[in-house]
């Protein structure tokens, strides 16, 4: 008894895991009754483009948080219009975890998300527009500063405008001109006044 060293078990695990990892078998395993099997099957489908439809279908129905997380991180690796559209629909989900997960995933899809931005910024639901700001804050596109400036200058909802300023901060942009515009439109907004008072600018 005491401290022991044993590394054969990890090698065994590798051998066992490499058996039978064909795409069809893994896709079928996304419906396994055991959530951990579903979770591991999703991870094994990382980078497999033909599995996207099955992964999306599983993601829409998956109730186990860990299995769903695995589906999300694997799907987020595909900068793909179909995947982006599915996550964009999740931005209006009632569940805040689902909404924020979708925003994180979309931030990692700069190509596919670009085509969705106009629709998201014009969505009649202000909550969706706030979530869209969360996407833009992490999105690496040269258009992001222009998109955020447009929101700050034109969106009628104060929460969306403050979210746009937050997104600019998250993106490391100079927020001073945005804050000036936002405060000009909503001078009584205490959060904007607070940000202006701290002299917010990128590090």
């Amino acid at each position, binding site marked *: 008894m*005491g401290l022991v060293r044993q590394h054969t078990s990890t090698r065994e695990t590798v051998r066992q895991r490499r058996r039978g990892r064909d795409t069809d078998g893994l896709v079928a395993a996304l419906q396994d009754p055991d959530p951990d099997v579903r979770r591991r099957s999703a991870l094994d489908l990382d980078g497999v483009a033909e599995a996207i439809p099955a992964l999306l279908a599983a993601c829409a129905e998956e109730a186990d948080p860990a299995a769903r*997380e695995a589906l999300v991180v694997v799907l987020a690796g595909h900068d793909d219009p179909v995947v982006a559209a599915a996550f964009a629909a999740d931005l209006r989900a009632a569940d805040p975890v689902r909404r924020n997960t979708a925003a994180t995933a979309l931030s990692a899809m700069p190509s596919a998300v670009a085509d969705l931005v106009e629709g998201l910024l014009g969505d009649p639901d202000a909550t969706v527009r706030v979530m869209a700001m969360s996407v833009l804050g992490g999105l690496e596109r040269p258009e992001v500063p222009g998109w955020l400036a447009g929101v700050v200058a034109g969106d009628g909802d104060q929460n969306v405008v403050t979210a746009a300023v937050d997104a600019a901060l998250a993106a490391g942009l100079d927020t001073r001109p945005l804050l000036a515009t936002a405060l000009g439109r909503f001078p009584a907004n205490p959060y904007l006044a607070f940000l202006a008072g701290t002299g917010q600018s990128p590090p």
Partner: protein
Amino acid sequence: VTSAPLPADRPAGPALPAGPGRPGGLTTEQFVRVREWVYQRTGIQFGDNKRYFVDKRVLACVEHHGGDFEAWFASLRLSRHAARGEQLINELTVNETYFLREDRQFEALVDVLLPQVLAARRAAGSADPVRILSLPCATGEEPYSIGLTLLERWPQIDHVDVEIVAGDIDTRVLQTARRGEYGARSMHRVSAAVRARWFDRIGPERFQVRAELRDAVDFCLVNVCEPESMRPFRSFDVIFCRNLLIYFDQLSGRRAAENLFGALRPGGHLFIGDSESMSRITSIFLPVRLPNGMVYRRPPAGGAP
């Protein structure tokens, strides 16, 4: 196949001013290319404010390989030059640690978690060893500190088997860790009594972990962001992954958290750094309050806490 969370055609990172960059440093374009390459392989993202840090280390690598940036960068992509990529990652990962750092978590391991693990083993009639993972282990201070804490503070160590596995993405620090040789800076929190019991003096202010402890820790190369790399790491009762997740962007952090989740047994516990918050990354772990901080738990099988 890399598990890089970004597609190959991802645009270059956040906007940087065009131009030659810092005098004597990389050009902006070179910096962005290196940053993207590192991100795709490690999930670690260097912001513009890390420019000086990155430039200095990249230029050291370029110099070492002949001084031509383009030739060096092209060689990073060739498998026959894998050592060059490895060297770059080694240079860019920070390995600053010391024995018994944030030792409240080691105390919680011994006083709170391990008794629970043993109780669960007894209830299940299992004689499986207790498994602990330290990741990233850097130069080895953390996994050896775990071993020291068990040997010094946990009488049950005489009655159960404990495996300590340690992993890092940096091959160079793994070599240092296996040697187990440390200077005064690493050792400043180790008492004279513990030093006398578990270290050999090998020079003025130089000490080596005794073979008995050194040989008990299994050191492995691993990238926490890559599912393929993490797949062999399974069934751990406790994982220490401290002060690593703060270096990742949101999606890479989620990937790393997902891989750590998979490395734990159902019901296993994950320690992260005091300044980190798992709830900002993912909700798949259950936060558990300890007398001296927080630990994150993989829900037990069946879902009951």
